[in-house]
């Protein structure tokens, strides 16, 4: 891509003294959570005074590798070598003492105390047990001055009054208040920053680099990486798949390495001809999404792709009546619906199987039966008494149809596997005979066998004429399931890809590209890569 070369021309690549040994070497890092392997044999090298960009799809293992670096997770196997010595960190405290800092995307800030106290939390300077407020503020000011943020933040501001950028700054101040920092990692630091703030952050990272600190920069944003990174490493499915100097690669090569999983037969279904428009959303705007327009026909599966935080879950919540609609309309079968609460959405025939199954969908301490009949219970009563035979019959039907594997329908849902829990949630909505069914991450935490079941069910629902909306972080799933793919970025729909044209590359390129003005161009770049 041009941008990379321009960058090189106007600001020669920082001297990465390629021969110098890396200050941090991670070798063969493997991490399993139960049966799921999040990382398998990841290698990562960072040298002093360079910025390493770590890229990868959602779920590629970027956050996990940072958590291992920060001592939050212990690796299942593999070695970490810091400044020539093999290290194992059994707690964040040890990693910190060794000079490693990780700045997370969502900083933990105490709302009711000052910036100074937030910065020194856990290590407030004290005499006997008495804290000198004056001293804490003075020390914080010294750190702020040293790092060059004097105009950006004051040590006496309350946590609750900080902007997102300032919250991130507090996290940076915390991390760098002591001198001995060898490696600092940023996890998607710019997701809530304005352009101006991003510039300030980059100037700061440039200073860190100049002072000889090794910087790891995790981001999806191609433009930023082209601007700041000296070197890039790509993770895919928990493995290191690509590493290069920035000057030796380009956007299309990076994207090609981020994608590229094998398609398999589980998605095979009859793509029946779509019917009437069932769901029609026009210029919908809420606090989190803006100007969303799309439609879904009966029998159609429309998938939403995009990065975490692109606004897909928030859109789903709005369609389920659980967000305030600021402007725009939602129509079901041509009839405009006023969705003031989920009650209205349920009545209109919209069902949502939310992303957070355990906390937002299931009543974990109650039975499968009670969870399935929840939304139709009032239609199963006579004089308010639940007609148990009717209920059991209905529940048994849906359990059989969705292949819910359980000893009995009276079993508590918390004893079920993730896949069976998801089937219970889907069964609940099917019992209601919805016109629109929204499935947010339907296969998250679901084992492979049950995944295939869920794909099959989605196909069947569409064949029955339900308008199905699927939100998924797994590109392969999105491409395999959908008749059409809508890509979201920054709370807006930025593109639509038809089934025939869908490749992981062009969908991902739409999702991560910053060049809003030329989406077609970047699409072409990606398409060239596939051929």
């Amino acid at each position, binding site marked *: 891509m041009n941008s990379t070369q321009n960058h090189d021309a106007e600001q020669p690549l920082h001297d990465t003294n390629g021969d110098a040994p890396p200050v941090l070497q991670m070798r063969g890092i493997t991490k399993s959570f139960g*049966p799921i392997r999040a990382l398998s044999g990841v290698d990562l090298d960072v040298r002093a005074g360079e910025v390493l960009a770590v890229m990868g799809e959602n779920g590629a293992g970027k956050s996990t590798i940072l958590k291992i670096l920060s001592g939050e997770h212990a690796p299942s196997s593999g070695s970490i070598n810091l400044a020539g010595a093999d290290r194992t960190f059994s707690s964040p405290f040890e990693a910190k003492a060794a000079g490693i800092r990780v700045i997370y995307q969502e900083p933990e800030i105490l709302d009711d105390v000052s910036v100074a106290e937030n910065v020194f939390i856990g290590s407030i300077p004290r005499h006997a047990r008495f804290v000198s407020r004056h001293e804490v503020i003075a020390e914080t000011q010294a750190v702020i001055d040293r790092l060059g943020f004097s105009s950006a933040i004051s040590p006496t501001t309350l946590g609750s009054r900080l902007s997102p950028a300032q919250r991130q700054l507090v996290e940076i101040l915390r991390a760098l208040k002591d001198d001995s920092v060898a490696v600092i990692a940023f996890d998607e630091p710019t997701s809530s920053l304005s352009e101006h703030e991003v510039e300030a952050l980059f100037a700061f990272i440039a200073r860190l680099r100049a002072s000889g600190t090794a910087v790891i920069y995790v981001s999806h944003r191609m433009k930023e990486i082209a601007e700041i990174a000296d070197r890039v490493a790509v993770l895919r499915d928990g493995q290191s798949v690509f590493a290069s100097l920035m000057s030796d690669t380009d956007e299309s090569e990076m994207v090609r390495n981020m994608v590229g999983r094998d398609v398999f037969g589980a998605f095979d279904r009859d793509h029946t001809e779509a019917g009437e428009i069932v769901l029609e959303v026009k210029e919908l705007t809420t606090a989190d999404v803006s100007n969303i327009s799309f439609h879904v026909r009966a029998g159609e599966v429309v998938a939403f792709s995009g990065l975490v935080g692109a606004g897909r879950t928030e859109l789903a919540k709005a369609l389920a009546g659980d967000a305030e609609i600021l402007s725009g309309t939602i129509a079901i079968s041509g009839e405009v619906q006023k969705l003031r609460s989920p*009650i209205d959405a349920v009545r209109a025939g919209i069902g949502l199987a939310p992303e957070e199954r355990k906390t937002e969908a*299931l*009543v974990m301490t109650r039975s499968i039966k009670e969870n399935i009949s929840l939304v139709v219970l009032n239609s199963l009563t006579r004089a308010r008494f*639940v007609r148990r035979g009717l209920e059991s019959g209905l529940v048994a039907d849906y359990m059989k149809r969705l292949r819910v594997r359980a000893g009995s329908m009276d079993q508590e849902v918390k004893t079920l596997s993730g896949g069976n829990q998801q089937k219970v949630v889907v069964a609940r909505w099917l019992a209601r005979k919805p016109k629109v069914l929204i499935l947010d991450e339907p296969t998250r935490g679901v084992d*492979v066998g049950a995944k295939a079941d869920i794909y099959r069910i989605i196909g069947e629902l569409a064949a029955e004429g339900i308008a199905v909306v699927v939100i998924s972080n797994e590109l392969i799933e999105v491409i395999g399931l959908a008749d059409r793919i809508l890509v979201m970025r920054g709370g807006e729909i930025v593109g639509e890809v038809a089934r025939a044209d869908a490749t992981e590359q062009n969908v991902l390129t739409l999702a991560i590209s910053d060049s809003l003005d030329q989406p077609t161009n970047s699409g072409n770049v990606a398409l060239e890569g596939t051929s």
Partner: protein
Amino acid sequence: MTISTGSASPTQIAPPEDKPGAKRELSFAAKFVARVGAQNLSLIVALIVLAAAIGSQNANFFSLPNMQVIGEGVAILGVLAVGQTVIMLLGGLDISVGSQAGLASVISAMVFTSSGSAIFGMAVAIVVGAVAGLVNALIIVYGRVNAVIATLATFAAYRGVVNLVSNGSAQGYTGGDDVFTFLSLGKIAGIPVLILVFLVIAALVYTMLTFTDIGRNIYAIGGNKVAARLSGLRINKYVIGAYMLMGVIAAIAGILLTARTGSGQPTSGSQGLELQVITAVALGGCALQGGKGSIIGTVLAVILLGVLTNGLQILGVNSFWQDIAQGTMLVIAVVIQQRRRGTRAVGLPD
């Protein structure tokens, strides 16, 4: 297997114990425990052990008159505990129940004295109870005040109202009235009416919780309010209904109190009752966070507390020890519950 497939091979099947329709044969004992519930079973065992211990020291414990004493002793507490169970299943709490009962007690006696009709007095008391419950609910739902704080406030305020209307002294004399006397001393089929009222209310609420959609939805809301909201349940309606039901039940408890003592009691008999009520419900297995518990558990816990008080009394144990025993039992019961949940011991529990 790595996640690199990110995918399913349709041939892969789930673990064998998950096979559809494969019902594991349960032993009779396991079925019994599942049916009764481990919580209720441990209460029954505790009850048997306690009764055996007391009975071995004093054979009079098992006499019919003593059983009746125990029953009448716990009836008012039991009525309130049944109401509190509904509130706690929703994830709420009502600390003002004792004050509401005191208010109803005084109102029923005063209205009876001025109107001459016991039924009218009781009806007015019940309406006042419903209104008191509604006020609690409105503060909680629309004022967005935590249930503990809201009812702590009305706990004091309702007690103030009682003392204001009664001037702080017992009101009226209901001992000569047939209806009130029937409530306190009457028997139907040999069972004291006081105990029957408790059992009937418990049975009605049990029916509501177990067999109707209202009860199911109460468990769902208490178990996961986000899921309940997204499923289209009108949560506010249920909260308001539950607190009003609690008010009505507290009023019935207050009327029983008036009947037992022969006059409207502003404080005596109802003050401090809220703590015993919450003790009973928690002992019965209701989780403070809602969604878990049952009327059977609550009734068993009420009986257990009654047996404990009575037993220590007939054994001549200092009444201060009774309070200590009650407190100890509650702590042990909740510690066991938390152990079974298996939460880590860090900071304040959920």
